[in-house]
């Protein structure tokens, strides 16, 4: 018997990708200190990947309850637009961020209610906000790209704390807080129970509907915070492009990270590695001079390969193969 950790494969993939990059260009691993701040490709990957990591964190919980949230990209756009619009009207940064996260939680509540109370399939329920969300975001900024002139707002995406980039630190704090909340209380177990067998968990006395709703609200809050980072990164609210394809990257990160789309068991560390894997892939394709147009093809083939490896049928084939070899 071998004990297989779910994060083994994504970790191997990430390391292999980094090694390939380093083999072609050793500068890939180089981190320098400039003006007391860390710079380098690894730091870039962490900073640029922070938004996907954040959205994927929320997505992990939703997928663990057996759901999916397709609306996160639109929610990121709403939060980003809200930041730009509120700062333009001279609101304080704290209030603006609270509003962005609040908007995300509101969206999550709507999704959660549709799924948990009305029993609509998650893909369908979150599709509504995926369609309408971008319209709402454009409504907030009046269909224009609103620039953010407040200089201190840029800190969130590109600032440094003690020489370390702020955005990855923020994401790290979110992951740790989520980890301790879920794993040091029974909440994580509840989430897995609901995702594994909702009926059984309800018979066991769990408030399955409430747990599901909380997962969607948390996912919305993560998307809202990611919207703050996105707006801070481009110093503008762009309802059209912000958070584009974010739902795909987030779902991909979760699946690659080893959390099954069917719900149940989840791994936050796996998700973080999965998100870093995509960002490294994107960055290294830029480094190799692959035209940006080709990038989606590679991503698509990777998603299909990973899902094939995780499917039961391939697992059964592999099992038969190894048994035959053993015999």
């Amino acid at each position: 018997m071998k004990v297989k950790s779910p994060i083994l494969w994504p970790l191997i993939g990430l390391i292999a990708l980094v090694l390939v990059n380093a083999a072609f260009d050793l500068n890939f691993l180089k981190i320098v200190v400039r003006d007391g701040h860390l710079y380098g490709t690894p730091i870039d990957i962490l900073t640029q990947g922070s938004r996907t990591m954040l959205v994927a964190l929320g997505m992990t919980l939703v997928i663990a309850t057996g759901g999916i949230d397709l609306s996160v990209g639109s929610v990121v756009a709403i939060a980003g637009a809200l930041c730009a619009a509120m700062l333009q009207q001279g609101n304080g940064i704290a209030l603006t961020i609270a509003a962005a996260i609040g908007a995300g939680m509101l969206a999550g509540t709507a999704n959660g209610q549709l799924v948990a109370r009305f029993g609509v399939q998650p893909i369908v329920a979150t599709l509504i906000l995926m369609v309408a969300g971008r319209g709402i975001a454009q409504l907030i900024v009046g269909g224009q790209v609103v620039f953010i002139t407040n200089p201190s707002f840029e800190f969130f995406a590109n600032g440094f704390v003690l020489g370390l980039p702020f955005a990855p630190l923020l994401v790290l704090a979110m992951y740790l807080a989520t980890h301790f909340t879920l794993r040091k209380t029974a909440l994580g177990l509840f989430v897995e129970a609901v995702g594994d067998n909702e009926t059984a968990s309800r018979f066991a006395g769990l408030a399955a509907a409430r747990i599901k709703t909380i997962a969607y609200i948390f996912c919305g809050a993560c998307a809202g915070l990611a919207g703050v980072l996105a707006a801070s990164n481009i110093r503008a609210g762009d309802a059209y492009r912000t958070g584009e394809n974010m739902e795909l990257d987030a779902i991909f990160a979760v699946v690659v990270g080893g959390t099954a789309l069917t719900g149940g068991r989840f791994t936050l560390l796996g998700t973080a590695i999965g998100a870093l894997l995509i960002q490294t892939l994107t960055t290294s394709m830029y480094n190799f001079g692959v035209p940006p147009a080709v990038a989606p093809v590679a991503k698509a083939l990777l998603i299909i390969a990973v899902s094939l490896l995780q499917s039961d049928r391939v697992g059964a084939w592999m099992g038969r193969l190894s048994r035959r070899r053993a015999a």
Partner: protein
Amino acid sequence: MDGAFVEEEGRMNAIRRHAARNLPLVVTGGILVVLFAIASVLYPGFLSWGVVSNLLADNAFLGIAALGMTFVIFTGGIDLSVGAVIGLTSILTATLITGLGWHPVAAWPVALGAGTTIGLAMGSIVQVFRLPPFLITLSGLFFARGLAFIVNTESVGIRHPLYRSLSDIRLSLGPLELPFAAIVLLVVAAAAYAVAHHTRFGRNLLAMGGSESSAVLMGLPVGRTKIGVYALNGFFASLAGIVATLYTGSGNSSMGVGLELDAIAVVVIGGTLLTGGRGHIAGTMLGLLTFGVIQAAILFDGRLSSWWMRIVVGLLLLVFILMQRYLLLRKPRPAAAHP
């Protein structure tokens, strides 16, 4: 088969079931008429044959994509790749004709073949490896869009005598002057209707959507049908891409971005259950017209910005999905109802 059921259940019961089954269709028809009436009152000139033929022509490629999507949704599946396949086939057609000097009649089958192959591949993966359709077709979206950008990132114009003569075609139906795109849409809709509601394949699709395990037990060719429906949808999407080149006179790799969402919305507004097993091609056409009327009304108004379209479509989706939930909950079969 229908006859035996009717005799068993009694006439009244049959009528009641028939009414319940067609309720979403009736509601959509009602909403369409009301919306059209409101728009006609608000905006002078809206109530005209020109607007009607524009409704069909402007939404022709969305309509063809939505008809294909209807088949997939019949089985309880979903295909998120159609917008990207439209982009791929439109740029492929334009590149073959303008760049390589092919005759359109030679270029079209290549484009149709490309779309159908992508659909076939996705359907096979979904069926053989039992993977969720949304994940595989999402990858298909990336793949097709990426391929389209590899072919050409710029828009490519098509100046071929055949394209010019096709765009001059007008079919007069009484006061209605239909351009070529609208004619194609109507022909495709008629073909889709025949396939969905008058062939064994169409019946199998709905049976699978109702309950896949029952369909397997009944001996229906579930695997073949499922792969076939994604291939068929790939064909419809590439046909939509070709119609898009006819409509715009060019091919563009970023054509159809987000169109899959509109297509799904059209199908759902047309009363087809997203869980599969129930729906109608005629509903999709009504859904398409409803979608078109909203779009035309927003254009006519001029004060409303185009993003209102997304919000209104989202609201309509919400209404119809909740209505579907309500209809499902009322169904006497307890197994289908969520507690």
